[in-house]
């Protein structure tokens, strides 16, 4: 007798938990040969707001975690991804990729994890500065995470593009809410399962599926989101995003490069703030001290 296959219910990922959308809505994207991919959650404004609450409450613990530890966790994401690469490749093919393209994308995604894992405890050393001020002060500038980041993953690249968008923000200690590719959402949902088993604290990355046009205004307008990251918006969407960002002067980061392919510390810096600290130095030792 043939065995009946168990079909997967695709969920979203908020605060380390896997709910369906609170709205009860779904959409059915088409995969290879017009085959329906499943009843995918069409996340609502309320889902997004819940995800921001989760991201905000996860931020403190993640931002203050040792950079070395963040590095280990990003590496662990790569490990988990490697172990499930077959599943990702199958899903990519379901979404329409060729077998070789699917293999390539998953390998690139894993390598991105390892690449950004390495930056976690290095970008600060490369880009911070001790500033030689003219007065008797110790003065230094360091990078701090901007806070909660709302991100839109690229439409075309389901897993590498999503990771290329998310990894630079969390490598730098931010938490984020990311909207997955609308037409290719399967890998994002599976990626949530990878993240949940990678020692990444719940809420640091929150993954939503749904309609970009619908959620974009809420992502830009939310007063507790500090930055917005995307790479493949239309010119009109970019203009609207910048205009609407003034509610709380959100930092709008529109990458010109394909996040699936870009390997660079500069995307990390894009969601950082520079903090400069001053402290006096006493000069009470006659004759300039040890010299």
């Amino acid at each position, binding site marked *: 007798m043939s065995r009946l296959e168990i079909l997967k219910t695709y969920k979203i990922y908020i605060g380390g938990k896997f709910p369906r959308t609170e709205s009860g809505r779904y959409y059915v994207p088409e995969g290879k040969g017009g085959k329906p991919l499943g009843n995918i959650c069409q996340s609502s404004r309320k889902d997004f707001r819940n995800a921001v609450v989760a991201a905000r409450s996860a931020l403190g613990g993640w931002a203050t975690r040792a950079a070395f530890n963040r590095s280990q966790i990003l590496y662990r994401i790569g490990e988990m991804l490697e172990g499930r690469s077959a599943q990702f490749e199958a899903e990519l093919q379901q979404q329409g990729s060729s077998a070789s393209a699917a293999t390539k994308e998953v390998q690139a995604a894993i390598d991105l994890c390892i690449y950004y894992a390495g930056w976690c405890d290095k970008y600060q050393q490369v880009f911070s*500065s001790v500033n030689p*001020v003219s007065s008797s002060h110790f003065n230094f500038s360091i990078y701090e995470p901007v806070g909660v980041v709302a991100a839109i993953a690229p439409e075309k690249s389901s897993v590498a593009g999503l990771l290329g968008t998310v990894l630079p923000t969390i490598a730098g200690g931010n938490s984020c809410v990311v909207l997955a590719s609308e037409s290719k959402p399967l890998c994002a949902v599976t990626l949530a399962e990878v993240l949940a088993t990678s020692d990444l604290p719940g809420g640091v990355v929150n993954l939503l599926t749904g309609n970009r046009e619908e959620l974009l205004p809420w992502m830009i307008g939310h007063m507790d989101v500090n930055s917005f990251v995307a790479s493949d918006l239309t010119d009109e969407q970019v203009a609207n995003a*910048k205009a609407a960002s003034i509610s709380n*002067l959100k930092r709008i980061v529109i990458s010109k490069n394909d996040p699936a392919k870009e390997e660079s510390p500069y995307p990390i810096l894009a969601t950082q703030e*520079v903090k*400069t600290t001053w402290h006096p130095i006493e000069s009470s030792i006659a004759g300039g001290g040890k010299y």
Partner: protein
Amino acid sequence: MPKSRKITNDWPYAPAPEAAKIAKVAKRYDHFINGKWTAPKSGEYFKTTNPANNRKLSEVADGNEADVDAAVKAARAAYEGSWGKMSARERGKYVYRIARLMQERAREFAIIETLDGGKSIRESRDIDVPLAANHFFYNAGWADKLDYAFPNRKPKALGVAGQVIPWNFPLLMAAWKIAPALATGNTVVLKPAETTPLTALKLAEIIEDSGLPDGVVNIVTGAGETGAAVVNHPDVNKVAFTGSTAVGKLIQKSVAGSDKRVTLELGGKAANIILEDAAIDQAVEGIVNGIYFNQGHVCCAGSRLFVQESVFDEVMWKLKRRMETLIVGDPLDKNTDIGAINSREQLKTIQKHLKAGVEDGAEMFQPKCDLPSSGNWCPPTVFTNVAQSSRIAQEEIFGPVLAVQTFRTVPEAIEKANNTPYGLSAGVWCDKGARLFQLTGALDAGVVWGNTYNQFDPTSPFGGFKESGFGREGGLHGLAAYLEL
């Protein structure tokens, strides 16, 4: 503590006025466009006054869109011509030359800054003018070293920078804007504030003397509409603005549909936090410097004071005693601590907030001081018993007005200090390093002063978190705002 705060004033300071006549101020100034002094297309001029006596100092051109267009065209031509083709090293040498010329004429610049803006001559002389010159000198050296500033990138200039600056540090803000723009190979159209245009126009004289190619720096004077014309000009590649958060938001919105790069350095409502183990005498000096420096016309002013309850009485007693000794008056007098309020309009804004503070139930203290009969003046003011929701604790006043609140624990101080849409700066006074760094790390602010306040340096990046704007000015990090990386 003794009952009386009074310090016997048997030996008052004799007046020590700086000589106003050293400053050469013309009766009228045109725009500086394409290396030439150019009359405004409208033929209109407006007067600039001395806020210490409200007498007219000079009149300056009222710029309109046509003037701005001429300036942008000149800047574009220079960018595509002389300046763009020049080697980075030669470019740097011009910027060095501007720094030197400014140092040579420092005294004249300080006097004009004080005449036009009302700030004390001590501050113009010791802070504004030397720092402005230092910004040119510091940035000049970067011109031929940019490849070292941004690893694995070949930085390129953006093109024409449109820059709009405020009235609180007229020359210094011009330097903060122009120096990095030139060092990175951009050309400039600068619009100084309407109440304080003179030192920027004197800077144009220096630029003329330096032999800088025509059109590299253009200065167009006017009010808000002139600034809007600079910001909105389609051939401007980069917008740099320092001013209020409200205007900064309008600018971000108006350029949203363009590819213009933007940096905004906006308002603040900084927390200055005094812990119980702080060196109180030093902290009191820091409070005074934090809020009364430049009449409180400082975006990073320490306008919210948080004092740990256990030392509240001592801090307030010492602060009030110190405030009694502050000298308010003639900005040209070298003894003056607090000069004139920059304009009548700003004085009205401050007075409105004083009223709001009293209405909201706070207790107001002002030391007795003899204010001059004419001009715009506001004595140093401190409010105690201030609620977190009070307007004087929430809104940027931009005047010599301090709102004091108390706290018991460090987490409470952090919570209250960060409870504002602003995030420009903060101060912490504490004798214990571990606690100090806990606070400096937890405060949402771009600049944090530990056991000091209101320190500035060309090598030190300045700029805010949250609604205090984005981008940095100064230091290596300030260069990025003018470069395509």
